[in-house]
């Protein structure tokens, strides 16, 4: 396959919508309803005379992000105007950062097919989002400025990514990271996490980078893989023919599974960057950095390593638990107050809790039917032998439905396993006496029939017999 001759060199530019309550440069709310242009103000409409004022919480979110990826936070950084004409850009320029961004360097760690990978970052900077353009079939388009001014952090990676799968994993890692930090929803489908990909090819072993094409309109993890895959193949075909790849921007069309050149005939982009005169330089002092660093939660990769190395969980399980902050917090709380080994708690969460909860963020909600401590209590009942695994599952179902604690349900309805050997022995004798044929066949060598007897005892005792005890007693009785 011709693509194998080449090494794909991929860098991603990711925009994260930072979840502050008000916009980055003005005080309109960032949570807007349905009606277009219902959430604007003179600044984000670009009215004559309006001026930007920077939102402290937005800077803080970006500082925390930078610290989480090990960036250098500039003690002083600057905003710059980036000029172009487009209807959703109300001022005719975006306020972004150019020569002195807030964060420089850093790296994102994640796993690709079980192997640790690191993608280095060039920079992270702040900027304002544009509004939204809507098109219909008539000859006009419509503009809604509700989104104009929403804060964005742009994360620029070095071209360290080598495959479309890796790109998707990188995006997933960023998503988990921003959600863990609580700075963004990180939702690609809703647009709070967006990416453009720069893709080029070179022969294996070559030092020099090939000409890159920029891919836009990538709206999901699936698109990340498909769009990049397609681009790699497209460029391989061109290079195989001995032609040169054109440096251009291409728009991904997910319906048709291909990209189209956006290369504009008339105007090349000259953004005419210059320092934003309406905003003096932004200072982030050491005290701010220290406070931000102290506020960081356990980061996803560190968590993953703790789960696998310290707690001995499988990579797969650890991956699921560490994938969302709320799941990991829930797991940590449950396993901490639980005598049972972490693995068992993990199983319960993965198999029972996550199946029922829907959006994992609900695990942090006060209305959660089975809080971590309640789960811990249930798991310990199994661990101590008070409940069988199967019984416990039923109890869990009821706990979830009725919002009751396990101890409560067990106590009120004598759900607990009957471990009284005498009671079990009576039932076993009864069953043995009632099935002479099976007894004979068992004694003749069909040892599998033991299960038959255990089943009958369990049925007789409405599932409440401790199966271990029943098993032992039956073996004794059957000889």
């Amino acid at each position, binding site marked *: 396959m011709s693509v194998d001759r080449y090494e794909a060199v991929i860098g991603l530019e990711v925009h994260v919508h930072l979840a502050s309550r008000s916009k980055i440069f003005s005080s309109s709310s960032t949570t807007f309803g349905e009606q277009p242009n219902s959430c604007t103000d003179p600044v984000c409409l*670009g009215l*004559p005379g*309006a001026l930007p004022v920077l939102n402290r919480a937005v800077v803080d979110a970006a500082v925390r992000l930078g610290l989480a990826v090990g960036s250098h936070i500039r003690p002083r950084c600057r905003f710059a105007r980036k000029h172009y*004409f487009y209807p959703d850009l109300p001022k005719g320029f975006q306020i972004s950062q150019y020569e002195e961004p807030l964060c420089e360097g850093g790296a994102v760690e994640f796993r690709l097919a079980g192997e640790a990978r690191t993608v280095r970052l060039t920079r992270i900077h702040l900027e304002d989002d544009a509004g939204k353009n809507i098109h219909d079939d008539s000859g006009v388009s419509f503009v809604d400025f509700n989104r104009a001014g929403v804060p964005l952090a742009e994360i620029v990676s070095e071209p360290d990514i080598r495959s479309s799968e890796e790109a998707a994993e990188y995006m997933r890692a960023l998503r988990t990271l921003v959600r863990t930090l609580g700075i963004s929803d990180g939702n690609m489908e809703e647009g709070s996490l967006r990416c453009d990909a720069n893709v080029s090819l070179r022969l294996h072993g070559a030092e020099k980078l090939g000409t890159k094409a920029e891919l836009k309109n990538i709206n999901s993890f699936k698109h990340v893989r498909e769009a990049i895959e397609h681009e790699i193949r497209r460029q391989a075909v061109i290079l195989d023919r001995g032609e040169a790849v054109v440096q251009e921007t291409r728009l991904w069309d997910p319906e048709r599974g291909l990209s189209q050149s956006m290369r504009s005939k008339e105007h090349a982009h000259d953004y005419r*960057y210059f320092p934003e005169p309406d905003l003096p330089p932004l200072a982030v002092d050491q005290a701010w950095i220290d406070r931000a660093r102290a506020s960081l939660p356990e980061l996803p990769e560190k968590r993953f390593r703790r789960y696998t190395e310290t707690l001995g969980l499988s990579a797969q399980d650890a991956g699921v638990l560490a994938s969302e902050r709320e799941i990991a917090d829930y797991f940590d709380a449950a396993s901490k107050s639980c005598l049972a080994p972490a693995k068992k708690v993990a199983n319960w969460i993965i198999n029972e809790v996550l199946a029922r909860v829907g959006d994992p963020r609900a695990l942090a909600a006060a209305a959660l039917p089975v809080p971590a401590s309640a789960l811990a209590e249930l798991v310990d009942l199994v661990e101590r032998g008070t409940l069988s695994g199967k019984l416990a599952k039923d109890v869990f179902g009821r706990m979830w439905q009725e919002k009751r604690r396990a101890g409560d349900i067990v106590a009120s309805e004598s759900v607990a396993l009957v471990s009284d050997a005498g009671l079990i022995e009576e039932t076993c004798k009864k069953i043995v006496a009632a099935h002479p044929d099976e007894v004979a066949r068992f004694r003749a060598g069909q040892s599998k029939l033991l299960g038959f007897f255990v089943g009958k005892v369990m049925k007789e005792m409405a599932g409440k017999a401790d199966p271990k005890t029943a098993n032992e007693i039956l073996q004794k009785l059957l000889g």
Partner: protein
Amino acid sequence: MASPQVKGATIAELADGVRARKWKARELVEFYLDRIARLDGRLGCYLLVDADGARRRADQVDATVGAGRDPGLLAGVPIGLKDIFVTRGLETTAGSKILRGFVPPYESTVSARLAAAGAIALGKLNMDEFAMGSSNENSAFRPVHNPWDLERVPGGSSGGSAASVAASLCAGSLGTDTGGSIRQPASLCGVAGMKPTYGRVSRYGVIAFASSLDHPGPFGRTVEDVAMLLEVIAGHDPCDATSIPSPVGRYRQACAAGLAGMRVGVPEEYFQAGMDPEVEAAVRGAIDEIARAGAKLVPVSLPHTQYAVATYYLVCTAEASSNLARYDGVRYGHRTAEAASLDELYSKTRGEGFGVEPKRRIILGTYVLRSGYYEAYYGKALRVRRKIADDFRAVFDQCDVLATPTSPTAAFKLGERQADPLQMYLADIYTVAPALAGVPALSQCCGFTKGNLPIGLQIIGPPLGEEAVFRVAGEYQRHTDWHKRLPKDPS
């Protein structure tokens, strides 16, 4: 009727009179509205007169006085606002066709502060389009005529603001100064006008020309009037990130504090050979008067003065090209009648809506910001700008204020300088450097030419040194009566 007293009255006198019930705010407003109706046809000062609004506000002030409550420092004082200040519900054009019909949904901080102090806005004053010009001939609507000689320009870009005060079509006004647009028209119209320290007065709601150079500021017949207005409009504004947090000074008090012991610097670069002899004579005469009043004169130098005009036009056009990018026919203002595509919408709208001077500056500004050109032009200009600012910093170690001419000439004739934009730019030579450095500077009348045209004296202070400026200007005014001279009403 109160007319003769009102025509010559200072803002302080008017406000005192309203509070003392010597006259009603409504009477003052009617006095000025009457003069505007009779005389402004010849002068062209107002783009919009808000008679209803002014009367309503006046009645409110009178009701407040009648109820025994405090109507504010500027009670009932009729004021004009350069049409660069956004006024809620009242058309604001920045002197341009591209904003004709634009009705802002919000109010500028400075006009709100004036209103809160009891002042009454009579209307919006004529100006050079987007504050670009030194003669008010670049207004898209009509030029302004100098009340001292109707065939001459009032200066610009705040031509309407200066002329209206000179012609008693308002008691005081607000303008903006980016390279001299308050001081130069003040000089040409024989009134006082001040460009404060950059950031002293909020730019929120001031239609932007060059963001790092725009300074809103007051005009008045006297230095005290200017000081009173400044006290009301100055001060921190959380809506402007370049707004200075420090408390506002006592400027009115400073006007009467005298200048004993002050050192007044006279920079050699502002008195070069070839100066207009009448301007030189008047300004040097004023400086001598200041020395006689007790100041010590100090010869100083601002070595980078020769680069100031070029630096100014590099910085201001770059910022202007950026600030004017928002005028695209999408959300407000003029929109071309037919556009087959988006690009056509933009190009035709802007081509039709902007006048010659904005187009010229947008092209120049876009040019100097182009990648490949940035470092050589804009980047370089910012460094020279710092050198100019450093010149001032150094000089204020040797003296408390500087005294210079405001304008190289008195008012020139309408149409005289239209053919050569560079000639027009060079007229800013005395005013651009303080704007680039952000230091406060005031212009006041210091004499008249043989042709009875006003000549202006500029007093420049260190950053946040408005008090020093007012001390010298106030004392000079006390020793002279140029400020009492009024132009004849146009016939």
